[in-house]
C-alpha cells in the first residue's frame, strides 16, 4: 500500500499525532496550507486554530496558549519569521515549548513567494537578540516531515524551548509517493510526546509567574549578577549539554570513501540519487544528511569526516552551513555546491561535484 502526499500534510499529521491542540498563524505562501489544514482539523477535535491579525499576534497567541497548558504549533515563511523574532526571544526566556515551522522561500524581503531556497538556516539560529541556542530540525523527505514534526514536539517539551522545523516550498508542496505508514495516518499514534512532564500551566494548582525579563527562580525580576548569570547559563546549558541526544543525521558512509557530501532538507533528495549513481560507477562516496541543523551535530560530523579528504556541502544559499562544516573540517578541502536561482540542485549537479 502506498500514499501520494505532500510535506505540508505530513507536518500537519505529525502535529496532530503529537497532541497539538493549538495553532495560530497568518497566511503566507508557502506555509498557508498548514494554516488552512489546522483550521479544518483542530476545532472538531476540541482544539483551537485561529488566523491572527499578524505574525506577531500568531506567535504571541501560541505562547499564551502554551502557558495555559496547550501544545502549540505555528507556521510561516521568511517575512513572517522576521516578525516572529522578538517573541522567539520571549519563548527562549520564558522557557516555552513551541514548535515553529519555517517553510523557507527565496529572500530577502518578499523575495520569491513561490520559489524555493534554504536561506534561513543561519536566521533561525540567530534570529532573536541575545544569541542563545535554539533547536532546529530539517526534514529531508516527506516521511521526515512527519517524523521530525513529532520529534520537534518531544524536544520542545523536554527542553522547554522553541524548536524550529526548517522546511521549504518544494518539500512542503511537492507531492510524492511513500509507503503506507511512513507519514502516520494509519492506526493510533503512540503518545511519545507525552513522555515528559508538562509545565505547570497558568490556571493550574501552582501560581505561575511568567516573564520575559531576567528573573529569579520564582519568576521575579532581578539584577542580582549571581542570579542573572545562573539563569543565562541555564538557558544555554540545557541545550548544549544535551547535544548528543538532540543530534539527528542520516549517515550513509563507506569506509574507503575520500569524498563526503553533506546536505540537508530538500537538497538531500538530489544528493541521495547522486551518491547512488556515483557508487554504480565505482566511486566510493560517503553521504551525510543533517536532520538536526542546530545545535550542529558535531559528534556525527566528526565520525563522518574520518578518513575523508574532500567535503562537498550542497545547499540552496551562499554557503550558510558550509561555514559550520569548515569549522570542524580541519585541513580537509571543503567546497560548496550552491544554487540561489530559485531552482533545486539536481542529482546531476551533485554527481558532477562528487566524482
Amino acid at each position, binding site marked *: 500500500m502506498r500514499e*501520494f502526499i505532500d510535506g505540508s500534510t505530513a507536518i500537519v499529521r505529525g502535529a496532530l499525532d503529537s497532541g497539538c491542540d493549538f495553532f*495560530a498563524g497568518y497566511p503566507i505562501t508557502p506555509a498557508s496550507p498548514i494554516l488552512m489544514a489546522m483550521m479544518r482539523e483542530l476545532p472538531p477535535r476540541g482544539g483551537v486554530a485561529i488566523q491572527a491579525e499578524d505574525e506577531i499576534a500568531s506567535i*504571541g497567541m501560541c505562547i499564551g*496558549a502554551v*502557558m495555559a497548558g496547550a501544545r502549540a504549533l505555528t507556521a510561516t515563511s521568511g517575512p513572517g519569521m522576521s516578525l516572529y523574532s522578538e517573541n522567539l526571544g520571549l519563548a527562549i526566556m520564558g522557557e516555552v515549548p513551541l514548535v515553529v515551522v519555517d517553510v523557507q522561500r527565496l529572500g530577502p524581503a518578499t523575495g520569491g513567494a513561490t520559489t524555493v531556497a534554504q536561506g534561513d538556516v543561519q536566521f533561525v539560529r540567530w534570529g532573536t537578540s541575545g544569541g542563545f541556542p535554539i533547536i532546529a530540525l530539517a526534514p529531508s523527505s516527506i516521511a521526515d516531515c512527519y517524523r521530525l514534526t513529532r520529534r520537534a514536539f518531544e524536544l520542545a517539551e523536554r527542553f522547554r524551548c522553541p524548536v524550529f522545523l526548517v522546511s521549504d516550498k518544494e518539500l512542503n*508542496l511537492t507531492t*510524492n509517493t511513500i509507503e503506507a505508514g511512513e507519514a502516520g495516518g494509519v492506526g493510533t499514534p503512540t503518545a511519545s510526546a507525552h513522555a515528559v512532564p508538562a509545565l505547570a500551566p*497558568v490556571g493550574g494548582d501552582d501560581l505561575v509567574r511568567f516573564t520575559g525579563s531576567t528573573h529569579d527562580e520564582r519568576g521575579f525580576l532581578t539584577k542580582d549578577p549571581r542570579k542573572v548569570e545562573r539563569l543565562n547559563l541555564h538557558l544555554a546549558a540545557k541545550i548544549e549539554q544535551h547535544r548528543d541526544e538532540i543530534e539527528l543525521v542520516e549517515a550513509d558512509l563507506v569506509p574507503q570513501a575520500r569524498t563526503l557530501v553533506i546536505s540537508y532538507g530538500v537538497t538531500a*533528495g538530489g544528493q541521495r540519487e547522486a551518491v547512488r549513481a556515483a557508487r554504480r560507477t565505482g566511486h566510493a562516496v560517503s553521504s551525510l544528511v543533517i536532520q538536526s541543523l542546530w545545535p550542529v551535530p558535531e559528534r556525527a560530523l566528526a565520525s563522518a569526516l574520518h578518513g575523508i579528504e574532500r567535503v562537498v556541502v550542497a545547499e540552496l544559499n551562499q554557503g550558510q552551513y558550509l561555514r559550520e562544516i569548515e569549522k570542524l573540517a580541519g585541513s580537509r578541502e571543503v567546497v560548496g555546491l550552491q544554487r540561489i536561482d530559485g531552482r*533545486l540542485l539536481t542529482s546531476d549537479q551533485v554527481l558532477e561535484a562528487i566524482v
Partner: protein
Amino acid sequence: MSPAPVTVTPLSTYRNDTPYPFCPGCGHGPILDRLNEALVALGRDPHEIVLVSDIGCSGLSDQYFDTHAFHGLHGRSLTYATGLKLARPSLTVIVIMGDGGTGIGGAHLLAAARRNLDLTVLVFNNFNFGMTGGQHSATTPAGALTSTTPGGHLERPLDLCATAVASGATYVCRATSFDADLGRRIGEAVAHPGFALLDIWEPCTAYFAPRNRLGKKATTELMASLGFERGLMHQSEAPEYGAVYRAAARGVSAATSVASTLIEPRFRSSLTRPFRLVLAGAAGGRVGTAAHMLCRAAILSDLFAAERRDYPVTVKTGYSLAEVVLSPAPIEDATVAAADALVVLSPEGRAQAAPYLSRLVSGARIFALAGIELTADERRVERLDPSAAPRKLPSDVIATTMVAAVALRLELAPLAALRAAAEGEGDPARMSAAIDAAERLASAP
C-alpha cells in the same frame, strides 16, 4: 467515604507584601489598589486569575499580586491574553498596559475588540512613556511637552475609548486614578462577559505631570477640553468569541482532510527506468488535476510518482506547470532537468515549455494541442486534437484527456489504471468520458 466539605474563604487581599516600585505620586499604585479592591469584591479564586502585564512602569504591576502572572513584550499583551483565554476559557484574564503599549500594539486592540473575547483591558494612561524617560505616546495631547516634543506635540491624541467602541468592544469606560468609584468600575469591567476596556487617566509624576502641570483638576479639565467623554461610554451584549468558537466547532464536520488515502497497486506498467514529464498549460486549465490523475494511475500500476507544481502568484491567469516524475523506485530527486516528454496543453504553457524544449533527453517525445506553434521541429511534434471527439468535451477535462492519451501512447500506465485514477479526480461520468476520448486520441494517427 464522601469527600470532606470544602469551605471557601474569600481572600482579604490579592496583593502580596512587596511594596510598589513607582515614583511618589505616580498613578499606577492607586490604580492597583483599586484593582485589588475589585478582586476582593469579586472573590474569585486567585488560581483562576491571570494578570497579563505589558512593558513599561505599568508592566511591573503583575509582581505585586498573588495570582498567576504573565509579563510579555511591549504592546503584545493582548496576544498572550488571547492565547491564554482561548486555551483555558475558565481563566479571568486581566490585561494591564500603558498608553505606550496600547499605541505600538494598536492592531491587536482593534482585532481583540472586534472578536469580543472575554478579556479586561486596563489602560494605565499617563500620556507618555514613563519608563523610557517621558517620550510622547499615542495619547499625548497636541501641544504637550515631552522629552521628544520639546516645542510641543504636533499630533492629536488617540481617543482610545472611541476607537474601542468603533471596533466593537462591548464595555468601554473612561476614568481617572483619582475617581472614588474606580474600584467599582474595574469590578464591572472584569465581570462583563466580553471585551472590556477601561481607559484610566493618571499622572506620571516623574515626567508628564510636572512638565504639563497635569494634576487632579487639570486631568478632568483636559478631558473636557479635548471633548472626550467620561464614565461608562458603552455597554452592550454581543456573542463572546470563545463561546461562539466552541459552539461553531461543534457544528463542523469531523471528517479529516489529512487522513491517508492508501493506494493499492493492482496494475502493471512497462516502465523500467525513471521517466520525467513536463505538463505546461493554462491557469484554471486543470493541469494539476491531470498531473494528479497521471500520478495516481502510475501508483496504481506499481510505480512511484512525484508531482511538482509551478504557477504565477495570481492563480487564475497565465500559466500552470507540472513536473511529473514516474519511476519503478522511490523518487528522491523530483526535479525535471531534462524531460523525457513534454506536453503543451494550451497556448499559455508555450513560454514555460520553451526552456524544456532546449534540454530534452535524446529521443524525447513532444506533444501539443493542435494549433499551438512551438519552436521545435514540427515533424517531431505529436499533435493531439481533443475537439475531434464525436461529442464535445467539457473544457475542464481537456487536460486530463490529453495527459491520459499521452500516458497510453507512452505506455506509462494501462487504460484501466488511468480510468480508475480519473474517476477519483472528479465527476465520474465526465472523467469517464475524458478517458474514452483519451483512448481514441491515443490511437489516432
